[in-house]
């Protein structure tokens, strides 16, 4: 082992966004040739830390030092010049160029202006071989899989002479084989003396590559230990901030109502394989798994966003095949999507409009709109779900994240669905509103709704669900019944 030199050191980093403190007093030491794993839940401050290290954000206080000398990174370009490269989750691949061309883009030690296809290929081949990556440089960028794209990004970082490479959730969208490729390449990277930061949710993978592990929670660094001195269970406990708990939740019915929705052998293209599940009236079922494990795909097949390749779905005993969200809604399947801004909200429309958007009063295109009726309905829901401010004519983009989520929830519930599916309902929602939403969802049991919750937030799943289906690599691998603790879930899915 070569002597480890300290490459990058962060001290006392603090960053706040308005009233929200994202990072408090975080220290970090990165040594060349070593892999430093950082893990924590959503909102723990991982992204902020990455952005600060990568020069995209500036810390409010604290300092960064490179090889002993203090640096102030003005922007990403500045950071790059200092040899710090951030590899984001979505590989930035140019689909119309070859792998080799993708590699050499953006400086690096390709000095001359001249580059023919042949010379690029030769150079790229050497570069890839150095890192042990088995890719043909002549291949089209568009033909790469997600995993291969990540590999190209890693090689590209090296090509740019990076001394510090920060990987932001590199494997979250990948399969096991592809993840292994990325992990191997990460090790090869470290082998070349690069200081690597591996930020990930996937605790097992962090343990596979990292020399040291840092756990973040609520913006604080809890610990940095050598990988050997921690167990995954310790890490999960630290992430969640308390010793293993019993999940309670008082009014849990001991017997749910009749079967409402079931799926047999459901498969989608490239998502989930042969999944079977059952949901009964009055119960909340969770689909747990890491990103890409297939649970979102299954749920999207349910609500008509993705097409089923095989298998069957039955709603109240009748076979259904929703081919569009419109059909799904007509059948009584409501969906609260994960990305509010992109998939849910109409930003400059009023709260009332957002709640009563379409399928509501008659699903015919010539149906009359009744403004007063809509506003009345919206006001009702606003009261029921405590949407603030109460003014239903306000544009919805003036509301906080939590209230926006409630608006979308109202939209789903206003149609009296049979099955309500929620995708990460607590994402981007402040604590108070989150609790309110959970209360509302739990209350739906009493109204005989069947609820499916898909989430990456372990606490959310533990708090809400009566039963959990576990997903891994596109298949259902097991079930857990309440009460469960977040730790159990975390371990079960990784």
């Amino acid at each position: 082992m070569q002597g480890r030199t300290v490459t990058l050191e962060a001290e006392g980093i603090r960053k706040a966004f308005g009233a929200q403190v994202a990072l408090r007093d975080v220290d970090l030491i990165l040594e060349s040739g070593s892999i430093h794993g950082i893990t924590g839940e959503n909102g723990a401050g991982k992204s902020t830390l990455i952005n600060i290290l990568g020069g995209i954000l500036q810390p409010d206080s604290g300092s960064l030092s490179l090889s002993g000398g203090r640096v102030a990174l003005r922007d990403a370009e500045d950071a790059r010049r200092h040899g710090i490269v951030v590899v984001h989750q979505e590989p930035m691949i140019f689909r119309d160029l070859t792998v080799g061309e993708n590699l050499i883009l953006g400086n690096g030690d390709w000095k001359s202006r001249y580059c023919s296809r042949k010379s690029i290929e030769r150079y790229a081949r050497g570069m890839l071989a150095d890192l042990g990556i088995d890719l043909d440089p002549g291949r089209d960028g568009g033909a790469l899989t997600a995993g291969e794209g990540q590999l190209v990004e890693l090689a590209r970082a090296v090509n740019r002479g990076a001394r510090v490479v920060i990987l932001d959730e590199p494997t979250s969208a990948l399969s096991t084989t592809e993840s292994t490729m990325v992990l191997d390449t990460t090790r090869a990277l470290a082998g070349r003396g690069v200081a690597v930061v591996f930020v990930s949710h996937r605790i097992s993978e962090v343990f596979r590559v990292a020399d040291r592990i840092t756990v973040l929670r609520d913006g604080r660094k809890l610990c940095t230990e050598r990988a050997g001195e921690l167990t995954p269970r310790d890490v999960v406990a630290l992430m969640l901030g308390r010793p293993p708990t019993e999940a309670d939740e008082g009014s849990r019915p001991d017997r749910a109502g009749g079967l409402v929705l079931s799926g047999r052998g459901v498969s989608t293209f490239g998502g989930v394989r042969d999944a079977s599940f059952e949901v009964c009236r009055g119960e909340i079922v969770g689909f747990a798994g890491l990103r890409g494990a297939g649970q979102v795909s299954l749920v999207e097949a349910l609500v008509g966003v993705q097409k089923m390749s095989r298998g069957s779905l039955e709603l109240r005993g009748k076979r259904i095949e929703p081919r569009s969200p419109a059909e799904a809604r007509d059948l009584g399947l409501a969906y609260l999507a994960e990305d509010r801004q992109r998939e849910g909200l109409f930003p400059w429309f009023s709260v009332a409009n957002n709640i009563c958007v379409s399928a509501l009063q008659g699903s015919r295109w010539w149906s009359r709109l009744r403004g007063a009726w809509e506003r009345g309905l919206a006001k009702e829901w606003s009261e029921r779900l405590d949407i603030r401010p109460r003014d239903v004519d306000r544009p919805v983009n003036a509301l906080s994240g939590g209230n926006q989520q409630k608006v979308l929830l109202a939209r789903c519930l206003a149609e009296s669905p049979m099955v309500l599916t929620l995708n990460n309902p607590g994402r981007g929602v402040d604590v108070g509103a989150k609790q309110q939403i959970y209360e509302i969802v739990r209350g739906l049991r009493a109204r005989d709704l069947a609820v499916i919750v898909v989430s990456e937030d372990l606490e959310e799943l533990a708090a809400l669900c009566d039963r959990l289906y576990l997903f891994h690599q596109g298949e259902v691998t097991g079930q857990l019944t309440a009460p469960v603790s977040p730790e159990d879930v975390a371990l079960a899915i990784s």
Partner: protein
Amino acid sequence: MIDIEEEGPARQKNAVPERKWMIKAADPEVMWDGLLVVLGAIILIVAVATTSSFLSTINATLIGTNFGYVAIMCLSMACVILCGEIDLSVGATMGLSAAVLVRVIQAGAPGWLAAVVALSVAAGCGAFNGFMISYVGVPSLVLTIGSLALFSGIQQGLLGSGSFVNLPGWLQTLGVANIGSTWVPIVVVIVVVEAVGLVAVLRWLRVGRDLYSIGCNRVAAYRAGIRVNRTVFWVFVVSGLNSGIAGLLYAGAIASVDATVGVNIELLVIATVLLGGIDSFGGRGRVGGVLGAIVVMAVLTDFMVLHEMTTTWQSLVVGMLLICGVIGPAALRHRASRLT
């Protein structure tokens, strides 16, 4: 007291909102309407000052007949832009339908049949656009450039270099005559009827709101159960049909059809719609604004014609107004959001 925690992105309007009208006035939409009114007033004043008898009923009739067919296309173009698309082929469709009309008449068919065929062809053009955009997935901008070329090419092919004057009398009446003995052209009535219909649809029917939703956030609209593809398809069909109606009216008014019918009209139509406050990206805007812009543009074009500005000069002016229509509301909105 204001509940700070739940209030969302802090708006510093906590300061007592005493001047409610000031806040209202800073609303970009209202501001744009205001600017439009000012523009219209300026044009009117200049026109009256420099042209004799600008305010006469004869001139008013002229404005109506000359701009009527454009106004019709503006109404459907407003729908197209509202749902986030664009149709550059309206002029070509207009010309093509006029071409089909005269050719069918030439082949011996009665006037009414020729009109039906021409309108069907126009609707077919719209359907072609709608199909390619909604179901094949070609971006509307690119496709309608292509279909513009295709349709106007067919128009040229059908007409060659000739000009045709054998138009049915009833069509000529429609194009030029007034109602009874008033100064109001029939064309204007048609426009008003369509406008009323459009306002009704947009305000009262679900499909009207769907247009806004699609333009605002296409994905969310799809997820919310709106049949996006179908709606957009029919919007283009309507656009094509309207262009066909415009073509027939124009033919009736000018009483002759040749290969220049409809050339470059799309510029005028789009400029008018954007000037009327319809957001170029869709999802925002009111028909009222478009109607106002129609009046302003109608007066402006009349003014330019009376002062014998060549068509290219006119295009220049319209081109500049188009750019204003794009940049203006966007800039106002940007400023408004930065102030709050």
